[in-house]
């Protein structure tokens, strides 16, 4: 073991950063092809996402959503489960949150509604994840397929409920009625205004703090409790876990319950925080993007947080881009796909060369020092 080792930050931070850059470079070609200067585009995106307070608010609002779905996927990954169903779980979680706001919210203030919505939204999301988990653990049904199917089923179920049950008689959009104003989660600018800080209005709301709490929770849960220990055991070596007396069925179900719960929390931000009514398709692909977030974040809460920020930036910056240039919003989707491609699928492509380069430089400085 004479060879020098590459320090962790190279693989954990430098490599992803270079991969993201590469994704940006490739998309720059596309920008040039459709006659937009990539430099201007980058400026607009950066300005739009971080250049002014409202933009930052939007960026963090999207970040909040990605944290929930990203954590959901990450937790499942630790048990070796690939939860593609975040989309459906978030959707059904939204039903829970929405029902609480529609009923309890009528007469209770937000600070009472919020904890109840957390519980009910979490339970709804968890319940939707539980069925595929149970089938996987007990009957060996492939969880990737069952969760995909459950996304479709959730979409049908919610469409039915919204069209036939929740929609008020006199409106025509497929959405529930608006929650009572008192049950709305305070926006961050409203919240800080209480303490005398002025911020410009944006959808960023208190659930952002809850998302941060969830990051800490996941960190503690996975790495500092015996249940997290059991989850990681099952994920890394199922037969060793069995030997250790860890019950596979129980752990798979537990993991997916937690995962579904986190996905269910997604609705707190979007429904109770911003839309204030249950809308058709309010998840809008955030569940799927959560997979990318988890992967880029290496399934660690801090990584998920950073990756969420990146995707928040892409979403908000992309909106600005289409606002300024009228370019198609799908160009951001391309960017997103490239980020996943380079950071996730091709993560090993540059690794050896970067590590070697680092070692060469590192060795040189050593020699000079000697």
């Amino acid at each position, binding site marked *: 073991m004479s060879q020098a080792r590459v320090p962790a930050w190279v693989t954990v931070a430098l490599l992803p950063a270079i991969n993201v850059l590469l994704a940006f470079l490739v998309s720059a070609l596309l920008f040039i092809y459709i006659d937009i200067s990539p430099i201007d585009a980058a400026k607009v995106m950066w300005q739009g996402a971080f250049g002014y307070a409202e933009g930052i608010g939007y960026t963090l609002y999207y970040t909040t959503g990605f944290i929930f779905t990203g954590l959901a996927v990450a937790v499942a990954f630790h048990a070796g489960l690939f939860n593609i169903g975040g989309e459906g779980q978030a959707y059904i979680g939204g039903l829970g949150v929405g029902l609480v706001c529609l009923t309890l919210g009528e007469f209770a203030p937000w600070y009472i509604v919020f904890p109840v919505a957390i519980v009910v939204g979490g339970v709804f999301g968890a319940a939707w994840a539980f069925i595929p988990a149970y089938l996987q653990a007990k009957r060996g049904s492939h969880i990737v*397929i069952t969760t995909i199917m459950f996304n479709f089923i959730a979409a049908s179920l919610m469409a039915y409920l919204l069209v036939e049950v929740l929609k008020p008689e006199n409106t025509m959009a497929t959405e529930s009625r608006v929650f009572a104003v008192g049950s709305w989660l305070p926006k961050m600018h409203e919240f800080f205004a209480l303490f005398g800080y002025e911020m410009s209005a944006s959808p960023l709301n208190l659930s952002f703090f809850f998302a941060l709490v969830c990051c800490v929770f996941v960190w503690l849960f996975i790495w500092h409790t015996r249940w997290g220990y059991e989850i990681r055991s099952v994920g890394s070596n199922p037969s060793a876990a069995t030997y250790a007396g860890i019950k596979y069925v129980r752990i798979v179900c537990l993991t997916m319950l937690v995962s579904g719960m986190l996905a269910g929390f997604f609705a707190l931000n979007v429904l109770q925080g911003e839309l204030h009514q249950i809308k058709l398709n309010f998840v809008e692909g955030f569940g799927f993007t959560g997979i990318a977030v988890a992967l880029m974040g290496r399934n660690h809460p801090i990584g998920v947080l950073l990756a969420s920020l990146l995707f928040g930036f892409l979403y908000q910056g992309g909106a600005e881009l289409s606002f300024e240039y009228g370019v198609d919003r799908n160009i951001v*989707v391309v960017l997103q*796909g490239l980020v996943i491609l380079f950071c996730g699928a091709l993560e090993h492509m540059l690794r050896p060369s970067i590590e070697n380069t680092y070692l060469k430089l590192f060795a040189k400085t050593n020699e000079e020092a000697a």
Partner: protein
Amino acid sequence: MFETLILMLDATIRVATPLIFASLAGMFCERSGIVNIALEGKLLAAAFAGAAVAYVTGSAWLGCIAGVLVAVCMSLLHGFATITHRGDQVVSGMAINILAVGLTVTLGRHWFKQGGQTPALSGDARFAPIHLPGADALQDVPVIGLLYSELISGHSLLEYVAFAAVPIAWYILFKTRFGLRLRAVGESPSAVDTAGISVAKMRYSAVIICGILVGLGGVYLSVGQTAQFIPNMSAGKGYMALAALIFGKWKPWTAMGACLLFGFLDSMAIRLQGVSIGEFQIPVQAIEAVPYVLTVFLLAGFIGKAVAPKAIGVPYSKERE
């Protein structure tokens, strides 16, 4: 009643065709050990390329070639990530799906200025139905006539190709040297490697075949079944094909059976709309969800465990990590 049944079966064939192409494509890929959730994106990309080129050149054939080429390119990208660079197969699949959604619309808008759609195809830019000889003559013969003229005759070329592809795929997979090696590489790549066969070469051939088949499926969507490309027109068919593949336990005939079942459910759903049981009207959403529910149901119990190729999802490398 009989006529309705024939018409339902007729619709079944149309709905099942892209599913059959895609699930056969997935079969080759997964049999070689590569999980393929990218079928969705490949279908979409091929549909777009097919319709775009068919429109520009006015030839369905050129469109078909372009669609297949694009799907093969996407497959090669998938292979490049998963075989050459041992990237995660599901993640690269997701990346391809997302890229396909974004690129088709962005390029489509830039080229055709119709919001990502391609202009409608007509004439030679489409695959017209093929009327088998004697279909008209036989039309009035009871039972057989309808069966022949409606169900067997009158489909577009690609539909016949899809059904012909099933026995061919079966033959290749189980009766040829290539098939033996392909199945082996999905079960035990190291055994294949030590037998002096290149694992990478086998897997690349598998992804290329996958590209060709799924490309045909995509082209069928836009050039055969419909006469233009519409953003997101794959609408989950790639996932359904994957479900059919698993349902069919990674075998061509059974996978086709599953595709036909899904197709039949779909055509039944269309006809069951507005049907009520007693007082209770069955919501359309419930009927729509039937194939999905059924898939879960069947996966959970009736068909027992679906045993995937053993090495699936694991990038092959001689060196241990």
